């Protein structure tokens, strides 16, 4: 059966076809849709009483990976999903589990983001995998993502190692036709976990070093298994010009496209979708026939480093064109242009030099001529921008800063913080408010300019303690969303309580993991929890930790919110405020609005206080004259307004009024 699906969905269906029993993840662009799809599948299967795997959004990636590991150690097949930054959170467990290996197939799906379109580091998971000692599969497109996901479970069981399935945004979010079974094929294995101290504990140096040896042996099995399965493909051109293009993962289709469009018949190819460990036999075959090798891969020179090291081991002395000699960028996506220039460099550069035609034994020596034409080399390196370049090309370029949606409760929280600081005479430029990951970080954008930092999940509370210990005298505020609090905010709060910090933690609780697409989290209302799951209340957690100074506020009630913050800032110790109101978007998808606000153009003086303080996207400038001296007034888009009333609290001229929908204004 063929369906048009994105790469992440293809991973989900590949896993279903592989018969997984358990899947767990933490949302993060560009990986989220994989687990979303599994969750949809399992829900509809449950309705029809059909079999389905157990699927959950875990509290963080480390927990998700541990959950999947437990299932796999009991012999089941299990999948864990996360974005690249999530691998850092799970790292402690991943590196340890790598030593123990696995019984059932254990696949770790990690989506990287060359070009940083989701706005995090351009971290290359392949280097992480090498560090952990885990095999890496890197699909070229959604169709291959489906096939390689299925294969990843086989590989994992063959070599008894967790396998990292690494994707990038261009594959994870590309919607293409994928041939697949689109069905769950449960393996019906019986769960059994055998006690084995030598394998599943780290009790002593001997055990640890034995496990390290086992890991290296398993990596060898992984290499031969992937070679046997023919995951990587070497194609030698007929006239054997000794020119090879090596392309990894997501770049393969672009290279194929360039090869079919241009006159590149003389170029041989090595397409790699199993990038670690290196297929040394295939690489050796290439070195035996190659003079010059072009390596095309995004981000770090991962394949290139392995090839250079293998070339050195073999004594091959041809030329490798890649990133390490500065020819290709390590920053951003590769555009078709970069690929095209690389191919030209490979094909034409040869004219300039004699090249290093290797002998049949794979060993050859060159003279001293430069490997590449320096001009051409500079041309290839010049384009170091991401392919989807949004760099200013003209003086007219504009940037649309992202902001809170109309009706977002976080807007109220940040307005209240700013108002509270003003009320007690604290200079905003001298009062550190740390921010955290998720929608709440938009508090750093205009018009709020409230948040100072954004580092990693839960870091707002830890960083604030650092500022406190450094001796910063003004009160410190940490802001964090509900899901981020559950994910990684609890341990640093425990730390703050234990060590007696002066800190106000404001938990902006909108009940959902919204930034990534409204996934459920432990604090989501009971009625939206999966069947059998229960809600965990933040208030109870914080009280249970021993925080006595705790207030729960509603951010749309500005008077109450400002007072609560002012109050807390004037006290010693750890204070927690939970600012609670549901995400405006999830609410709007379910419920009709009961009221909106409007601006009386006769009363509006165009002072723009409403816009300056709320930055609400429902507010706009219109040319209606009215009493305004400016010939312009503010207006509210009745389609966007949710009736939250925050702009109402800004107007000194009584120009904003409430309008009951289906009723009269008040």
């Amino acid at each position, binding site marked *: 059966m063929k369906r048009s699906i994105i790469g992440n969905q293809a991973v989900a269906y590949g896993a279903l076809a592989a018969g997984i029993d358990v899947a767990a993840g933490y949302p993060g662009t560009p990986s989220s849709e994989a687990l979303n799809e599994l969750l949809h599948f399992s829900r509809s299967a449950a309705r029809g009483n059909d079999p389905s795997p157990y699927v959950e959004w875990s509290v963080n990636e480390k927990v998700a990976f541990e959950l999947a590991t437990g299932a796999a150690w009991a012999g089941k097949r299990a999948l864990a999903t996360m974005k690249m930054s999530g691998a850092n959170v799970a790292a402690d467990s991943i590196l340890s589990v790598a030593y123990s290996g696995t019984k059932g197939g254990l696949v770790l799906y990690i989506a990287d983001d060359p070009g940083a379109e989701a706005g995090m580091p351009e971290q290359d998971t392949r280097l992480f995998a090498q560090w952990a000692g885990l095999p890496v599969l890197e699909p070229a497109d959604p169709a291959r993502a489906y096939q390689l996901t299925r294969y990843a479970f086989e590989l994992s069981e063959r070599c008894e190692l967790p396998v990292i399935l690494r994707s990038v945004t*261009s594959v994870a979010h590309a919607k293409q036709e994928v041939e697949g079974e689109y069905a769950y094929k449960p393996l019906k294995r019986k769960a059994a976990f055998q006690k084995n101290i030598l394998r599943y504990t780290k009790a002593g140096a001997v055990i640890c070093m034995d496990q390290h040896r086992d890991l290296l042996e398993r990596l060898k099995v992984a290499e031969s298994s992937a070679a046997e399965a023919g995951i990587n493909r070497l194609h030698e051109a007929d006239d054997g010009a000794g020119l090879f293009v090596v392309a990894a993962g997501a770049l393969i289709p672009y290279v194929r*496209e360039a090869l*079919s469009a241009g006159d590149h018949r003389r170029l041989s190819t090595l397409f790699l979708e199993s990038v670690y460990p290196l297929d040394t036999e295939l690489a050796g075959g290439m070195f035996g026939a190659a003079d010059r090798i072009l390596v095309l891969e995004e981000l770090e020179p991962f394949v290139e480093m392995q090839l250079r090291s293998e070339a050195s081991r073999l004594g091959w002395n041809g030329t490798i064109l890649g990133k390490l000699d500065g020819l290709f960028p390590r920053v951003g996506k590769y555009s078709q242009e970069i690929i095209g220039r690389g191919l030209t460099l490979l094909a034409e550069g040869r004219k300039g030099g004699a090249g290093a035609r290797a002998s049949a034994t794979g060993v050859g020596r060159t003279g001293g001529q430069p490997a590449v034409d320096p001009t051409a080399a500079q041309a290839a390196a010049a384009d170091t921008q991401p392919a989807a370049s949004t760099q200013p090309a003209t003086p007219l370029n*504009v940037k649309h800063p992202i902001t809170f949606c109309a009706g977002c409760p976080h807007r109220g929280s940040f307005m209240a913080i700013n108002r509270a600081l003003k009320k007690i005479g604290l200079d905003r430029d001298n009062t550190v408010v740390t921010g955290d990951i998720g929608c709440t970080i938009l508090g750093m954008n205009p018009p709020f300019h409230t948040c100072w930092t954004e580092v990693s999940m839960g870091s707002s509370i830890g960083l604030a303690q650092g500022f406190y210990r450094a001796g910063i005298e003004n009160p410190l505020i940490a802001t964090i969303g509900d899901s981020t609090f559950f994910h990684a905010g609890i341990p640093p709060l425990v730390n703050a309580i234990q060590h007696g910090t002066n800190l106000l933690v404001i938990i902006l609780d909108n009940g959902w993991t919204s930034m990534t697409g409204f996934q459920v989290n432990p604090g989501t209302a009971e009625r939206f929890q999966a069947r059998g799951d229960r809600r965990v209340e933040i208030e109870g957690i914080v009280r249970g930790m021993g925080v006595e100074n705790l207030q729960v506020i509603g951010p749309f009630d500005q008077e109450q919110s400002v007072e609560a913050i002012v109050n807390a800032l004037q006290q010693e110790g750890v204070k927690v405020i939970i600012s609670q109101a549901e995400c405006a978007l999830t609410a709007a998808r379910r419920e009709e609005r009961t009221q909106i606000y409007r601006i009386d153009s006769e009363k509006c003086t165009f002072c723009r206080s409403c816009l300056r303080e709320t930055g609400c*996207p429902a507010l706009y400038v219109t040319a209606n004259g009215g009493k305004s001296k400016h010939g312009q007034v503010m207006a509210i888009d009745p389609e966007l307004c949710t009736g939250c009333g925050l702009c109402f609290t800004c107007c000194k001229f009584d120009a904003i009024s409430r309008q009951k929908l289906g009723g009269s204004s008040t």
Partner: protein
Amino acid sequence: MMQSIFMTGLGGQGIITLANLISGQASEKGLKVSLFNAKGMAQRGGRVTSEIRMSDDPGLEFGARISAGKADILIGMEIGETINSLSFLKDGGAAILLDYAFVPTTMVLKKEPYPSFRQLTELYVRKTDRIFAVTEAKHPYNMFLLGVFSTVAPEIAPELSFFSRERMEQAITEKLKRGLEENLETFNRGCAHGHSLLQRV
């Protein structure tokens, strides 16, 4: 045949729906189609782009993303973002440009000038003479532009002659249940506008 369509605008404008409907027609026609939506910040008023690539050769392999200078058609739904996307259009490519600006709060407050539609078209004119300036659009803009696109696409490239008002009406009826009447009406107005643009060209 290989056609790449690059679309850009802001969250909330319905660009993903527009892209889904256009790529859906190509899939139905039996073409090999790839659709990539970059929508991470869509609901917070951020930039949204859609990249559609299609080919009638089922054996042809191609990547999902459109590189700079490789878009055969560019559909711009917001002046600022369309200016930001100028580099994607190939020389001589077709540009469907909507006269709509969303001025960011910061620029309103600082009274910074925002680029005008005239400035936008002046930039694009340097790259192509095939510009369809959509200046009389009605809400919802995505449906209006879908009407324009369905009408002008067959004139832009003969390979795109499978786009038609009738097929698209059917697709809208099947895919969009909410506000169907308004969507269809706006779509048809867009078709009419497309016809008048063709006469002007």
